[in-house]
């Protein structure tokens, strides 16, 4: 009797172990799907594109295949890199300027009510101007060099940084301020111990939007008037009916944007702790 009992138990144990292992395998499969779903979707789209071009009988001049674009990127690596370097410089210049000015503006808005009243309507009004429409004017004043591109990237990136930083600072639980005050904290300590860390996820949200917009700003600047940069390279390719090089430039531009975005994402992971990251 006792022996059958123990035997039953060991069988049950084994079964449980098995089902747990199954569950584990299922979970890891789900995790795999989750992690690589974006890549798989992108690969599927590229594959369909690759197959559809010859099937539809479109000329490579009108729509090159992804493979052709990829080979072109590899063969024209140096040309693309030279122009990408220029665009990167403009993007980072505009974005960096927007970070410095935007965070400073946000802090002033946060700490000064009169300033908030004065500047907020202006900022919103500025936001309603299509920045693209400013590009020709900027060229008029700043010439054909990097200055109008950086300015455009800066103008387009400023708004999300200011707004997200102000919102991040304002959304702090007031009781947290009471808490650190009761410990004798000064305003500077309150800022660095509580306000800033609590606002960081918001601030980085703004940064990520801003960096993508900066890329757009810089490239649009290059469309209007430029002698270098990926946008300029596209115009060149267009005038030569070199559709493949055109697409290669687009791919490089988006690679630039994606890389910068994930770089920020990485930095955020190092410095900001999200509320539910531990779960």
């Amino acid at each position: 009797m006792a022996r059958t009992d123990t035997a039953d138990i060991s069988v049950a144990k084994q079964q449980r172990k098995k089902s747990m292992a199954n569950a584990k395998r299922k979970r890891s499969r789900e995790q795999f799907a989750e992690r690589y779903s974006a890549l798989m979707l992108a690969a599927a789209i590229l594959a369909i594109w690759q197959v559809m071009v010859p099937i539809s009988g479109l000329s490579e001049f009108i729509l090159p295949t992804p493979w052709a674009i990829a080979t072109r990127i590899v063969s024209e690596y140096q040309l693309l890199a030279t122009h990408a370097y220029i665009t990167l410089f403009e993007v980072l210049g505009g974005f960096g300027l927007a970070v410095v000015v935007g965070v400073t503006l946000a802090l002033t808005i946060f700490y000064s009510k009169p300033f908030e009243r004065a500047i907020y309507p202006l900022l919103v009004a500025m936001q309603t101007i299509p920045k693209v429409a400013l590009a020709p004017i900027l060229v008029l004043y700043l010439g054909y060099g990097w200055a109008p591109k950086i300015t455009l990237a800066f103008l387009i990136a400023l708004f999300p940084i200011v707004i997200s930083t102000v919102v991040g600072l304002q959304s702090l639980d007031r009781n947290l301020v009471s808490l650190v005050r009761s410990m004798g904290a000064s305003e500077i300590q309150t800022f660095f111990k509580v306000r800033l860390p609590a606002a960081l996820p918001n601030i980085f949200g703004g940064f990520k939007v801003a960096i993508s917009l900066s890329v757009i700003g810089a490239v649009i600047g290059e469309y209007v008037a430029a002698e270098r940069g990926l946008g300029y390279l596209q115009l060149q390719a267009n005038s030569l009916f070199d559709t493949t090089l055109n697409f290669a430039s687009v791919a490089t531009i988006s690679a630039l944007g994606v890389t910068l975005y994930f770089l920020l994402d990485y930095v955020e992971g190092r410095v900001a702790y999200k509320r539910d990251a531990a779960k």
Partner: protein
Amino acid sequence: MNMTAQHKGAEIGISQLSKVYHTREDEDILALDNIDLTIERGSFVAVVGPSGCGKSTLLSLLAGLIPRSSGEISIDRETISKPHPKIGVVFQQDLLLYWRTVIDNILLPIEIKKLDIAKYRDHAEELLEQVGLGGMAKKFPSELSGGMRQRVAICRALIQEPGLLLMDEPFGALDALTREQMIMDLQSMWSRLGNTVLFITHGIDEAVFLADRVLVMSPRPGKIDLDLKIDMPRPRKWAETHEDATYHGYVREIRKIFEAKGILVAH
């Protein structure tokens, strides 16, 4: 000076303390009206009253968070007007910083006062051990339950061995079972540490159960209506005390005040 547990707490003096709030409509609201109060070293004083009776104002004044309109507050005979290092505060919410580990949350006051953190680390671990959270030092607040988080908040208030522990409805956000456990644990912790405690609550039961003295307050203007000495032996056991006639006598006495003021209406 004798620093045994019984004398570790601070002595609190409050004289003719008033607080007037100015509203946006340019009205003056008298939140505290001429309060006189002395709290003995190491005693546990609970303040009960409905919302708006000025009990939280009293706590904010003691914590140095808001300026007083008139009167004086002293801790160990020293007049205070801003946050004092001898005072630790526990709020209704745990207010843990979610980006800091448990231990770093407890050490926050030390960081803010620019003291030597290494010196307090062991003490922080010890406090965690005492509240039953040994080994939780490296966890993040989001990994803890509500009761555990409030325990961490209490450790944070105790890290500097404050003479006065201010507690503002500390168990108000907890479920009934957790609250009961926390009340018991607070009693045993206090009897070990011997700080003076000012415990703000709207729970008559927890006030009578925990305190040496219950101050009953009523609003408009905020005044102390009753200063009731609770004479029951310690340690008090939950079940026994709640069956005790003396305990119910105290609870009834407090309820009577609220009924007389129309705060509690009998049906």
